[in-house]
């Protein structure tokens, strides 16, 4: 009867938990708590698809019989609104990321669950980094995937609705824009949503970690005060214009691209990695996050 003893010693021997593993479970935990991370872009995609189908059906009725006549003009109504779709989902993703960052370290103190999380062997570093990865990596990649699937469904739906209407469906599928847009969009998601806005997320998380209450006020007040002081002392608004530039996203190319009016072309930042603004912003983000980690160390429930 040795078996139970062996089983018991095996069970009581402590496993080792790697950083990757506790990071993984910390991220999963964020998904359980914040289902908006994926539900919001999914809802945006669903609403978009419904209105897209209605729009295409109207288009079919309106264009009935004249497809063949106007072969040359056919491309423009059939040029699927990829850009609009991407803009909608990305906009939602940005809003979700901002509210997530502002609430995450405050929420765990408000509902006292910070005491439970702190009773687990997960360091403040792992916790804050896993939370930072949500707006920085997870939301951009996830909303990119959702956008891609949505655009593909758009193609399929448009083909079904327009089947037999005389429209050149093959043209839609061979149109290179779908794949080009996908790559551009992926680049945009990682660079602008991830890297360019990193200091914004870092700042919001710091406010979330430090605020005794109302983190939104704590996030907004300091920039407001700096703007006011600068205005009064020097009668200048450098700080405000700096902030505005930062929030508008990285500078886009001045020269219009060959397909002017194409929304997607504005998504590709010009010489993105050459910009000192990007690297300066990342350095600031690192400082904000480091302080947030430090602050969480001292924080308990409120």
């Amino acid at each position, binding site marked *: 009867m040795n078996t139970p003893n062996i089983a018991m010693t095996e*069970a*009581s021997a*402590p*496993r*080792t*938990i790697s950083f990757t*593993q*506790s990071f*993984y*479970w*910390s991220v*999963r*935990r964020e998904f*359980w*708590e914040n289902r908006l991370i994926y539900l919001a872009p999914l809802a945006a995609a669903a609403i978009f698809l419904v209105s897209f189908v209605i729009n295409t059906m109207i288009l079919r009725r309106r264009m009935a019989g004249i497809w063949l006549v106007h072969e040359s003009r056919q491309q423009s109504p059939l040029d699927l609104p990829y850009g609009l779709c991407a803009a909608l989902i990305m906009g939602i993703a940005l809003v979700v990321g901002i509210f997530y960052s502002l609430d995450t370290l405050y929420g*765990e103190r408000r*509902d*006292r*669950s*910070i*005491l*439970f999380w*702190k*009773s*687990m*062997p*997960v*360091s403040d570093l792992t916790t804050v980094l896993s939370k930072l990865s949500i707006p920085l990596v997870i939301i951009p990649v996830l909303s990119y995937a959702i956008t891609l699937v949505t655009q593909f469904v758009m193609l399929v739906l448009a083909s079904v609705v327009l089947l037999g209407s005389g429209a050149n469906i093959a043209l839609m599928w061979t149109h290179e824009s779908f794949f080009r847009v996908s790559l551009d969009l992926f680049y945009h998601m990682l660079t602008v949503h991830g890297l360019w806005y990193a200091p914004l997320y870092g700042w919001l998380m710091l406010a979330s970690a430090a605020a005794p209450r109302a983190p939104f006020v704590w996030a907004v007040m300091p920039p407001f005060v700096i703007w006011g002081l600068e205005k009064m002392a020097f009668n200048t608004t450098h700080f405000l214009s700096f902030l505005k530039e930062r929030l508008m996203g990285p500078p886009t190319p001045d020269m219009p691209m060959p397909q002017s009016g194409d929304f997607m072309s504005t998504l590709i930042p010009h010489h993105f990695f050459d910009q000192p603004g990007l690297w300066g912003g990342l350095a600031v983000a690192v400082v904000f996050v480091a302080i947030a980690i430090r602050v969480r160390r*001292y924080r*308990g*429930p409120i």
Partner: protein
Amino acid sequence: MACIEARGLRKSFGTTVALDGINFRVEEGRILGMIGPNGAGKTTALNAILGLTPYQGELRVLGRNPWTERDQLTRDVCFIADVAVLPRWIRVSQALDYVAGVHPRFDRAKAEAFLAKTSIGRDRKVKQLSKGMVAQLHLALVMAIDAKLLVLDEPTLGLDLLYRKQFYDSLLNDYFDRNRTIVVTTHQVEELQHVLTDLMFMDRGRIVLDTSMEDVESRYAELTVLPAQLAAARALKPISERDVLGRSILLFDLAASHVDRQQLVALGEVRTPGIADLFVAVLGEAKGAAV
């Protein structure tokens, strides 16, 4: 090696002194009850032990500095800070998954076995559970962790009698062994009488009494006397006196008043005092001495 060792442990919030340079030592394998009125400094002491708050003075938990070495300590130290700290949105199965994912000493089968004895469904969310069930869930998670030190801060606050009793029964029967140390604070002191091995009374940041339960039994005695013997009993200098149903109950500190237990037996019925009565008497005495 002592499980917890504190020398000159001090903590103040502004001008309020929460811990006034206290010294204590908790050996391995003990169950210490920290008892004191609100604001006595119990929670502050526990937070210092858990590395949740910085402090002044010297403090070692399992040989480590809890503030600077907190990340290493969290594997060996477990705590239930309050009944209501489990996140309300989490599902029972998710809580099990999460702890199994991040805690190297968590034995999932053990937690499942404990939960099987309750009526808690795996797919329920914490917010759908009653307060007693949440406490059971938290206890199931914590008891399945093979920790060296377990800290409980008011673990049964707001639970009904049945759950409170189950809580301590499970803790003693299924969890406690001589290699583990438990530190618990509570207001429901009477229920702890037979659970504790050591007792610490705190008041306004100071330790008023720090003793083992065996010492309580040999050092303190409660005498129930009829009115006829009352004068003789009072002459032996009890530390407190109260009247219950026409009889007087006097509490003696045998060591301090040099009274022999036999002298008391001659006057009436002698018993070991309850923790609550002892607490009131010792605290009253400490306050009297301070005036």
